[in-house]
């Protein structure tokens, strides 16, 4: 996955602002290059500190708008407050194929490492993918 540094910074600021809860959004672009992000609300009210959920209708709207503009949904980003930027079992159980899952670890309100992951086609596990930051 490739994305511009300014977009990565936008993502990090968004996820820091959501701390201590998990925050999330959608990565849009074309041909493996993220060109914009769509912030989404984490609609989990019960355990937002370790769960996120994008309302399906909100997601549908983001995807429709992207389709109309010739963009694709390339992936999802979300934060892991105070834990490592590695996908959890829960992430795996709920993952979609062909999407990049960008996870950013936010420790004490500050975004630290970020890693991106792809679901294996047999749903057995995530594989880490390279993230190229374009200046």
């Amino acid at each position, binding site marked *: 996955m490739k994305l511009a540094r300014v977009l990565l910074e936008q993502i990090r600021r968004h996820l820091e602002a959501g701390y201590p809860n998990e925050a999330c959004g959608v990565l849009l672009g074309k041909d493996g290059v993220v060109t914009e992000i769509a912030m989404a609300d984490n609609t989990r009210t019960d355990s937002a500190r370790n769960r996120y959920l994008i309302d*399906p209708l909100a*997601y*549908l709207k983001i995807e429709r708008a992207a*389709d109309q503009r010739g963009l694709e949904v390339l992936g999802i980003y979300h934060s892991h407050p105070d834990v490592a930027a590695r996908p*959890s079992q829960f992430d795996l159980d709920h993952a979609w194929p062909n999407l990049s899952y960008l996870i950013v670890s936010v420790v004490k309100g500050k975004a630290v490492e970020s890693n991106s992951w792809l679901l294996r086609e047999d749903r057995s596990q995530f594989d880490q993918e390279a993230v190229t930051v374009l200046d």
Partner: protein
Amino acid sequence: MAIKVTIPTALRRFADNQASVEVQGKTISEVLNNLTRQHAQLRQHLYSDDGKLRNFVRVYVNDEDIRAKGDNAPINENDEISIVPSIAGGNLAKVDPVVKDRAKLTNEEIKRYSRHLILPEVGVEGQERLKAAKVLLIGSGGLGSPLALYLTAAGVGNIGMVEFDTVDFSNLQRQILHFTPDVGKHKLQSAEEKLKAINPNLKFTPYNTKLTSDNALDILKDYDVVIDGTDNFPTRYLVNDACVMLKKPNVYGSIFRFEGMASVFAPHLGGPCYRCWYPEPPPPGLVPSCAEGGVLGVICGIIGNIQANEAIKLIIGKGKPLMGRLLRFDAMDMSFREYKIPRDPNCPVCGKNPTVTKLIDYLEFCGIGRGGEAGGTSGDSIVDQKEEGLGPDDISVETLKKMRDAKDDFVLVDVRNPDEFEISVIDGSVKLPLPELPQRFKELPKDKLLAVHCKMGGRSARAVNFLKQQGYSKVKNVAGGINAWAERIDPNVPQY
């Protein structure tokens, strides 16, 4: 009729890279079936192995979620079906410390806990939480012993203990909190002496009672963590339900023969509860207690310390709790296996629409009659047979003695396992282990009175029920079994 189905970007690769496809069908389920027939790779991402739509797949007709109408609802020609990802995730690993307070350490305590303090994950902060922590142990037996010793040593400042029993010789093989000179002493007193010797600053709160539906909420309510070290189903369900209602983490452990299991139940922290795993207890007698089936003593230390480990992690809020996971240990294989326990959204206690909202009669729930059938099978800490009185099919060991002395014409049948015959026997008994009874019961005469006994009365009660079903009318259960005989009639017979 062809219906337009829009495919989310993530799945387009499995649908020839199309954003939408036309599919035949008159109902939503027909359309989805035809869709996954045309594009087979879609199936594993839309449906789980049991053929249900995955819970993160939403299907909309126009802008309406189909769950509102069900997937057999008819559709019209101009309707558009959209498959929409419900994008979800998150991590279960992190939990906040369940103990919010901190209690300052004295210089003596800083020295005492120095090996903890230099661990960054514990540190002064974690140790101060441990000191402020209030942990309730249900039982001071096999699991409660190592739990109490290690948690006290680790610096847990407040320990409550629910126990009504006294120390018995048969406890010493595994209940390492109690020593030989303690036999006959109340377990709470024995426990307090040992724990205070480890840490004189410990605040120890004894509860000399059985845990019941009437007192459980009151006892549990002030504690941060509850640890279930009981050996029977009624108490296990009682502890679970009370913990769910009070939002207390329940650190579960159980042991049997050469095996043990542990898990953390805490729906309020995102995990399942015991009932998500076992909604209902097994029939009475199906799962023998340790008193009937035996247990290798060291298993208590292994499982009890896993529980202590999990309690400490919850208190200091570090690591990945054993939540949503069941750890099973096999001492013979020397292997640990982990099983997933998903949360059940329809759980009667912690689900979305709970039907159990106050504590119930757990003896009845577990099918354990009061003064009747299968009384002794649930372990020895909640059902005390001597107190339950005799049921209609029971005879006391005193009556048995009188019948023998009077040389009545009856047959004494011992339904214990062959290994147990080597420990103790009542002279003149016919040995017929319960598992062999269905094949061998015809060896028993129908015209004579049969008095059936086992170790404590549980298995023999089942044998009596079985024999009555086979047409035996004169069958009696020797209440309390050979142990009661040894205790009250013949001191030369060993108790075990």
